[in-house]
């Protein structure tokens, strides 16, 4: 089950040094952000070609700048679409509005911006790695390790949980920033996230080689996926207990619900439907978005069967509660959260072996065939999970065609057809049988 002892040791050290989820996010810390240009010099992180002399490729800036969508996050706010969204929200401009900049840029307070800082750089180096004021001077020293830098205020992105938490702060939302249903209503696209897949798509500007493994924790795709799911679940459960669900408006925060419950075939049309395998909801009853939670159940199944059962039960109860009253949602969320916290702790010290991965895969496929992912969000999460687990199991070659079909089916949420999705999963299953 454990891939190698060394990585466990690193992981354990890591966990001891960086306590889970306690680090303030980069925008919450007080250090100055010196700006992308401080990192971008060709002899620092702006090397055109990856170098083989140092323990990092040093072309991070180039990858970010050329291929990472984060580099364009601010520019997006200048688009016509963004302008339209801003107008609908009663904002003068998207690129000046805090509500937009908080996720589309490194929107730290003015006094925290160094001379070379440019808001226009979007989601740049320090948006994730933290303001460099206190570590820029030392971090290039070969005697200074990552833990030293973290102590000086660098954000511990190497820790998967911290990393997931950081990503989710925008890619799902937290108490400070959240793409609410109101923003979506003004035209903002739906938000979804899966840690392992998104990291690959970013694309990653680090190479996990021997050097990296010596210095930082590594894990299988499945494990990263699982961690991402758990952290996402926690985030969701947290928000479900927060003011968003309990806000005193006519409607609760609808962004916490399953979009496609109402916007099934089109984001412009409403057509409620019942999930195939559950008969809990009443017509018109809006299910909560529980894509991550459902993944968490699959993960839990590998860790502790009884937890998995509890999780499944509570998850059903949560959906039922969404048709009943807000307080119940909060209560069930709290119970779920406790369970997920435990799960998270168990997971942190666990790595999946081949049999576990296989079981997760089979579970996911079977769930899908049974109609569990009739909803788009579930299907989207399932496809990403299925793919990364197959990659992890080194089986991509034989199932490439089926995976492509699955991706095609979830490419556009407005044309998603659950029946076809189930058929495709059957075909995939046939490959592995």
């Amino acid at each position, binding site marked *: 089950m454990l891939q190698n002892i060394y990585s466990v040791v690193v992981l354990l050290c890591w966990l001891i040094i960086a306590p889970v989820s306690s680090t303030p996010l980069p925008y919450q810390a007080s250090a100055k952000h010196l700006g992308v240009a401080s990192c971008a010099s060709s002899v*620092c992180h702006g090397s055109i070609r990856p170098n083989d002399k140092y323990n990092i490729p040093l072309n991070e800036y180039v990858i970010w700048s050329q291929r990472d969508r984060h580099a364009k996050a601010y520019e997006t706010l200048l688009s016509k679409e963004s302008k339209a969204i801003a107008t609908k929200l009663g904002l003068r401009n998207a690129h000046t509005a805090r509500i937009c900049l908080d996720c589309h840029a490194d929107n730290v307070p003015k006094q925290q911006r160094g001379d*070379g800082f440019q808001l226009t750089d979007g989601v740049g180096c320090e948006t994730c790695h933290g303001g460099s004021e206190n570590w820029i001077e030392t971090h290039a020293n070969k005697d200074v390790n990552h833990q030293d830098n973290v102590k000086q205020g660098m954000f511990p992105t190497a820790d998967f949980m911290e990393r997931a938490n950081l990503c989710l702060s925008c890619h799902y939302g937290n108490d400070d920033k959240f793409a609410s249903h109101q923003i979506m209503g003004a035209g903002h696209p739906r938000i979804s996230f899966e840690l392992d897949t998104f990291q690959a798509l970013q694309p990653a500007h680090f190479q996990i080689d021997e050097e990296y493994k010596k210095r930082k924790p590594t894990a299988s795709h499945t494990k990263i996926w699982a961690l991402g799911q758990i952290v996402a679940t926690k985030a969701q459960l947290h928000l479900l207990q927060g003011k968003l669900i309990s806000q005193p408006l006519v409607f609760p925060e609808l962004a916490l619900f399953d979009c496609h419950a109402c916007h099934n075939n089109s984001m412009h049309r409403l057509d409620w439907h019942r999930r195939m395998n559950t008969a809990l909801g009443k017509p018109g009853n809006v299910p909560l978005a529980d894509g991550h939670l459902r993944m968490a159940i699959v993960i839990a199944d590998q860790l502790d069967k009884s937890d998995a059962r509890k999780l499944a039960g509570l998850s059903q109860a949560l959906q039922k509660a969404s048709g009943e009253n807000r307080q119940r949602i909060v209560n069930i969320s709290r119970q779920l959260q406790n369970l997920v916290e435990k799960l998270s702790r168990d997971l942190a010290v666990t790595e999946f072996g081949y049999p576990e991965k296989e079981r997760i895969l089979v579970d996911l496929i079977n769930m899908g065939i049974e109609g569990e992912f009739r909803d788009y969000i579930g299907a989207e999460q399932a496809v990403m999970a299925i793919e990364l687990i197959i990659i992890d199991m080194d089986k991509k070659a034989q199932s490439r065609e089926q995976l492509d079909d699955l991706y095609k089916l979830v490419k556009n949420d407005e044309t998603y057809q659950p029946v076809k999705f189930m058929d495709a999963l059957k075909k995939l299953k046939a490959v592995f049988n």
Partner: protein
Amino acid sequence: MTGLKLYQQWIVVVTNLLLICTLLMIPLAFAEIAETEYKYPRYPASQADQTAEQAAEKSDGCLSCHEPMDSKNMHNNPAVKLGCVDCHGGDANVFLSKNLSPEDSGYVVQRNRAHVLPRFPEKWNFPSSANPQRSYTLLNHENPNFIRFVNPSDYRVSKESCGACHLAIVQSTKRSMMSTEAMLWGGASYNNGILPFKNYILGEGYTFDGLAAIVEGPKLADPEAAQLKHGVLSELTPLPPWETVKPGDIFRVFERGGRNKSNRFPETGLPNLSGNPQQLVEPGNPDIRLSKRGPGTGGRIAVPVLSIHKTRLNDPVSWFIGTNDQPGDYRNSGCASCHVVYANDRDPLHSGSYAKFGHLGKSQTKDPTIDKTASGHPLTHQFSRAIPTSQCMVCHMHQPNMFMNTFMGYTMWDYESDASSMWPKDQKYPGSEEIRAINERNPEGAAPRGKWGDLDFLTHVSEMNPKLKDTQFADYHGHGWNFRAIFKRDRKGNLLDENGQVVSDDDPKKFNKAVHMASIHMDKGMHCVDCHYSQDNHGNGHIYGEVASAIEIDCVDCHGTTTNYPALRTSGPAAPPTGNDLSLLRNPDGRKRFEWRDGKLIQRSLLNPDLEWTVSLVKDSVDKTSKHYNEKAARAKLMSNNTQTQQWGSDVAKDQLAHGQDEMECYTCHTSWTTSCGGCHLPTEANWKTEGHHYEGGASRVFATYNPQVARDQMFMLGRRGKVNGGRVAPVRSSSALVVSSTNANREKIYTQQPPISASGYSSQAFNPHFPHTTRKTETKTCDDCHLSEKNDNNAIMAQLLLQGTNFVNFVGYHAWLGTENGVTAAQVTEWDEPQAVIGSYLQKYAYPDWYQRHQNNQRELQTSFSHDGDRTACLQLRGEYLFAAQGNSGMQVFDVANIANKGVSQRIVTAPFSPLGHSTRIDSENATCVALPTNQPIHPERNQGKQMREDNQEQPFHPIYNYALITDSQEGLILTDINTLADGELRNNFLKRALTWNENGVLNGARHITIGGHYIYIIADSGLVILNLDDPLKPRLESVMPLKDGRASALQFRYLFVTDREGLKVIEITDKAHPRLLKNNLISLKQAGRIYLARTYAYVAAGNEGLVIVDIEKPEQIKHYQSFNADDALRDVRDVIVATTNASLFAYVADGEDGLKILQLTSPESQHKFYGFSPAPKPQLIARYATKSPALALSKGLDRDRGVDETGHQISVFGRLGSRPLNLEEMQRLYLDKNLQPWFVKSE
């Protein structure tokens, strides 16, 4: 006998004395450099990473004196941790004791303990830290530890200081042309016939210890392909010492043999000052040769190599410190050459925000120990990427270094404009010491006579601008030179404002109103570094020999094409396969350099954080729906190659575009003007003992000043680039139209104003395709700059464009050559001193007022001439050291005129330098009437053969007509003789023979004049104009005969042949040689019309008793009488006329029969304010005369300086850049003839 013995004894005594003196002098010479005994610790290389505390420990002692400091480690990035000692070496543990002032001896002790001390304190002006003036090779002798102390970025030591972080760049820069100088050495050695390699092999580089090094490039998988496709060279070897390089020149003085009469020039490698072995008289050997020993000895060395070692040319390159003596000369060596900014120029467009710090290299540092009043200090102790253009101009103000003055709208001053402000009122007679002192700073021969030789005057030259009438000067003066501004003018020379309206020459604000032709890029606030980024400046690690191959940026990278917006990826010849991504670039303030905003491409200034501009996008300019649509641009860019319809638009297929991107460079049209250095004079003086500027340095005899002769800005010419640059059509400039002279130790002029011959045998009046960097929005080239205009008024422009020459910038030097009734005569017409002003001219009046007055007192009569009496000479042509003269029934004689200015030779013009048994250059014939050469530039076709020339050097072959001299004989017709023997350096085979005699059916009976236009020749004979095709020179083909009424002479300009006959001047269109067309109603009636000279848009006709008749030929089909000039009856029998340029002025030389030679100044800044125009209207003034002994009949045409190719597309002059060349016949014709060879025309609007 007794007398002889005494003489011999005396010789022995003198020799011994000389030897003793020499022995004494040797230790003295070495003692000049006082070496300091000092033990140098080897300081460790700087560390890439260390803690702040570690860095501080390496700085603390230093800061006890040097605090406050601008930037402690010069880097702006807090991640960089460096202590002072990391870069500089020295001892940071020495702290200044309190209350010690710099005057205290204790201070000095502590300072010297902390610092690294120089080996040559006097040379460094120790303890001053200002860069010494003209230090040149001092760095090669100095201890590297001290070099690292004063400049850690010097290339000798930069690996130890900068290499810790920037190793790849440190290595690249040493291979870059800014360090190796390969482009100059390669070009100079090839163009002067010293080395036959167009893939250059020479380059400068040094070891840590300052020893000459071979520069090696990275190992290549396929070096041959890299060379062929990318111009990448494998390695460069050091320049050999000049003492061991044999001459490439074929001047007579370098020929074999000769005793060495009382020459005090020591034999190289022969420790014998008196040259005793050569004292023996050897009968039969010419006694005016340099040495009978082999080439490379006894002064028989390659003077250009010596010049490269010793003149400033483009010295110093970045291996050395700037000369730090004049505004525009302040910089350091190595990385700091560019990255540490010095105050060089007060113009904000050149220096950006640094302009306010003056131009005297003074510091603004906070460092209290630096003297702020001393020149030679950087502005601050701080690296910068915001490098102003003024810093680049420290080197790039000289032609072999790209001559980037053009970018700023300047070119070299010509000594004439505003002469009254630049020359002293009283003539200067500088002493040797003064001359030497000034020429050390400024290699111009004229500087010691001008006011600008005085540093204080030079510093303030640009402040005179508001008062000046002819021009405006730049505020930078690299090498001590003056640069004049270029203003927009029409072809006649009228100043124009931005709307193309004429600005009056009398308008006091004319220079504010007229457009200053700097690049639009500079007008927008751009500096060099706003286009040329890291790789262009550091190199990509490979060795290149040509600047244009080493550049990664291309116009399209930022401006895009007609079909694509710019990708912001470099795509020039040296760009990596997918280009460097410009969108990654960030300015010092952290902002992106390029950014797309609302469909606009914004570029931010690297120097000025508040400045940004919108980049013009080609795609928008041709898109009708865009608000940036420009119909003129769209028409030019989308024009089809169908010359009939001249249809244009976006529907024209890519392969049918007339101006397709693959076919021509953007800047072929997007160029407002090009610089054309129509000549430079390098007179070598054996008696000037001077320092070498490269390698081990050291003083030795011989120095050559550097004298620009004609710097025009109205010449636009086209050629093709080499393969590395896609073979595209590009503007061509005259790049090194050198003439060289030599004055030996006895002050004898052993060769005079000789153009060398290139290694390829082509003339060294070199050209090369280039990017002029004068891009402007409005002032671009337009249709009729390259195609026949509808008004048919651009015949001369076309001749210039195609590089066929316009006979305007031709060079008549020290002597004018005349044919007379009784032989040939050379009259001295200019000063020998620099500037070589024509005697009696405007320039002489200002540069030599005393001598000008003396000339006036002499009734303007020239004083010096040399003749060779003989037969009537009605036609003559000088080429190199030979004068070709048609001498009637004596036939055609080639005179040896090598010693025309040699005071050691009594008979200056000889038929042979020794007995006719050993040399005969006469072609006997019945009645030789005229002789013509396919080119008057010295060439040697035999050099241009074999695999090396054809394949390695990618040279075109010579047309065989270039082997011959062409003689007309009134009875025998056409005679050809092979004259290559005169250019082979072998003195024993100079016997000319007839190669051809041709007079088929007597068509050439009465032949009297010949004009050559490529392989077509135009002979005036009894039958009229006879056109022959000499494509096979030994088998002439008659093309046509056009009857004339007693034809006299002809002259050719592009599509038209001008002829004179009994009726006057006529014009014949000769586009179709088989069917020449005599233009009707296009006659200038003249009674005694004789020879014709065409100089751009004016024809000068020798009209006998009507004087000199000047005809406006701007429209050859509608020629107009402009002026008949007889200088108040002084011109009474005009037989021949030639025109030439000296400096900025145009002169006519007139053969006035009985009255001899007359010189007319046609334009001067005084007589014609439009003198900078392409063809200003002449305002003739008689300025000098020379009464020949017998009537003057003919003149030798001056050296062609703008003729690189003939009318049939055969190359004449060498082209710099591997594989580049002038347009061939087919390519020329494509610009103006259709498929049926019929002319087509363009409308410009």
